[in-house]
């Protein structure tokens, strides 16, 4: 059985239904609080062994989505189901137990590691927290984990500052894998690494997934990396998913105008000499969200309806999900033509 579809009961490992997260943002002591919809009506699912790439620019809510998925934050609306059960309330016993099954990897490996403790101790930490294995078996497990991420056993004694950036990210990954998690949320895991090291990290992640079968939510601003590691990708803009589908479909034939702009903006030697449409304007302030489709002020094909009505994320004929009035209409048109 392909690990990606190995759920047995046909139930997704993770189902996120229409979650939202609002923050009251207050700049300075006195300013009146403004409500920011960091995440607004996001739905997604993730199978075992599958990687979903979540792309978007800063402030689009992709990191908040990651924290909602992990249950590190409670959504203001909607629901997160993990392995068929609703996400327990933050902090209670069931929630703590679930921590062992879902882990997170952050962008900055140095910040994620305690600089006063050797790597080995930090990799063993989740085992202690969740009381896994006999204490006498833990050192062997640490060595095994270090080996799995390509670190040498003797590097267990090293402190974070004694390792290179790539090695530190490996150590973070080893720690995240210690509990054999079913779900790994990686938030910009390669952004802080050098180009040649990024490739190592992406290879390692895919190799570990093939071996261990965990699901990965891969959050990144880098479409190239997301294509490389993901089975599906979701493009976010200002708190909402605007397009979701197979990576190559979204990348090479984007249906949403924002996805199109994002794909066109990828710098790549293979695209040398080509001119491309450049999206104008800045991403709007999440605290001052445009009405209707949040993308309409920058959209080259916006119409009257885009200013007033929020397009729903709907599946197209080919299974891709798109939240765009124009895309819906043209897809419906194709549908009618075919029917005729």
């Amino acid at each position, binding site marked *: 059985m392909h690990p990606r579809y190995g759920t047995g009961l046909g139930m997704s490992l993770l189902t996120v239904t229409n979650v939202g997260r609002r923050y009251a943002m207050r700049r300075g002591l006195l300013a009146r609080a403004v409500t920011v919809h960091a995440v607004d009506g996001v739905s997604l699912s993730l199978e075992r062994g599958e990687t979903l790439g979540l792309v978007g*620019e800063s402030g689009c809510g992709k990191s908040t989505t990651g924290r909602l998925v992990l249950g590190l934050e409670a959504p203001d609306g909607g629901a997160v189901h993990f392995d068929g059960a609703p996400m327990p309330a933050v902090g209670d016993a069931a929630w703590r137990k679930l921590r062992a099954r879902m882990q997170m990897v952050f962008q900055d490996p140095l910040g994620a590691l305690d600089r006063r403790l050797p790597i080995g101790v930090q990799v063993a930490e989740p085992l202690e927290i969740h009381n896994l294995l006999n204490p006498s078996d833990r050192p062997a497990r640490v060595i095994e984990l270090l080996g799995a991420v390509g670190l040498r056993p003797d590097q267990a004694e090293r402190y974070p500052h004694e390792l290179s950036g790539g090695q530190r990210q490996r150590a973070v990954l080893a720690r995240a894998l210690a509990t054999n998690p079913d779900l790994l949320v990686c938030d910009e895991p390669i952004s802080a690494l050098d180009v040649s*090291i*990024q*490739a190592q990290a992406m290879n390692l992640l895919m190799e570990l997934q093939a071996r261990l079968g965990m699901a990965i939510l891969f959050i990144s*601003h880098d479409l190239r990396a997301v294509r*490389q590691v993901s089975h599906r990708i979701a493009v976010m803009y200002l708190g909402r998913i605007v397009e979701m589908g197979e990576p190559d479909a979204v990348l090479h034939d984007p249906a949403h105008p924002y996805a199109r*702009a994002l794909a066109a*903006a990828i710098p*790549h030697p293979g695209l040398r000499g080509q001119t491309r449409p450049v999206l104008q304007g800045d991403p709007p302030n999440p605290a001052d969200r445009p009405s209707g489709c949040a993308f309409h002020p920058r959209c080259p094909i916006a119409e009257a309806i885009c200013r007033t009505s929020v397009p729903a994320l709907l599946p197209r004929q080919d299974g891709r999900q798109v939240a765009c009035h124009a895309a819906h209409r043209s897809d419906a048109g194709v549908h009618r033509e075919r029917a005729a």
Partner: protein
Amino acid sequence: MPITGVDKTASTPLIALSNLGVSFDGVVALRGIDLAVMPGESLGLVGESGCGKSITWLAALGLLPARATVTGSVRLDGEELPRTKAALERVRGGRIAMIFQDPASALNPVLRLGRQVSEALTLHRGMTGSAARAEAKRLFDQVGLPDAARRLDAYPHELSGGQNQRVMIAMALAGQPDLLIADEPTTALDVTIQAQILELLQSLRRETGMALVLISHDLGVIAETCDRIAVMYAGRIVEEASADAFFAEPRHPYAVGLMAALPPLTGPRRPLTAIPGGVPEPWAMPPGCAFAPRCPRATPDCGIAVPPLTALAKDHAAACIRVTAPVWA
């Protein structure tokens, strides 16, 4: 014989660095750079963090901290640029302007943007008062800042990252430079904003005819913007070529590795060909070719001597004995 210009017979280079070296408290960071920029051309300088690509230009302009020791020579229009304060200050922001990676922290947080631009106008073009303000507004318009007049009175924190980078570019243009050095100008920006800034740099180059040195770790960014490429590794230039020749066939194993490590946009998704290991620390430089310990093609000979940058074709040179050695072996 190292080659330095694309076509040296055309004219004298705008700026020519020869055997430029930098060390910090005895630790060598830059190991003899020979590099020339022709008037109006765009040169991409690519390499990973710590390879010396930024230090090269900070050293050329005397912008490194005092503990840095700089050796070698910088020639401007064929004439030696003396490493005196006065000479360097005249060049900086005038003939050669520079913009940096993180525009938000590269601008002074407590001064209005208009004043920061006017300062350069006063310095290099003698403009003051309303004339400087009008010119600053024109520059803001030129770099595509919306609502330019109002932005003159704004502070950096009131603008987005992309807008602040436009302000930096406007400030660089204030001195009407012949060369703009852009040090990772889009690394801190979002992808769509990166595309805007790259496009702006291209169009400004067309309008003003200034030369551009684009420093970046991202081959994709360089590929779109530059006519010529120089790849740096561990304080040296290891490959130099026209962009066409380079992207058609990179020759140095490190450059080949960089290209292979880049996730492709099309085709089946296979594991990437990663370069093993990491960049050597400057105080633990391997003998001979610094890339040899990570190089798939290394032979024992690679550890003997530093390979010189050697011409392979008219517009292509590499510093690798495995690539440049005659094939009789």
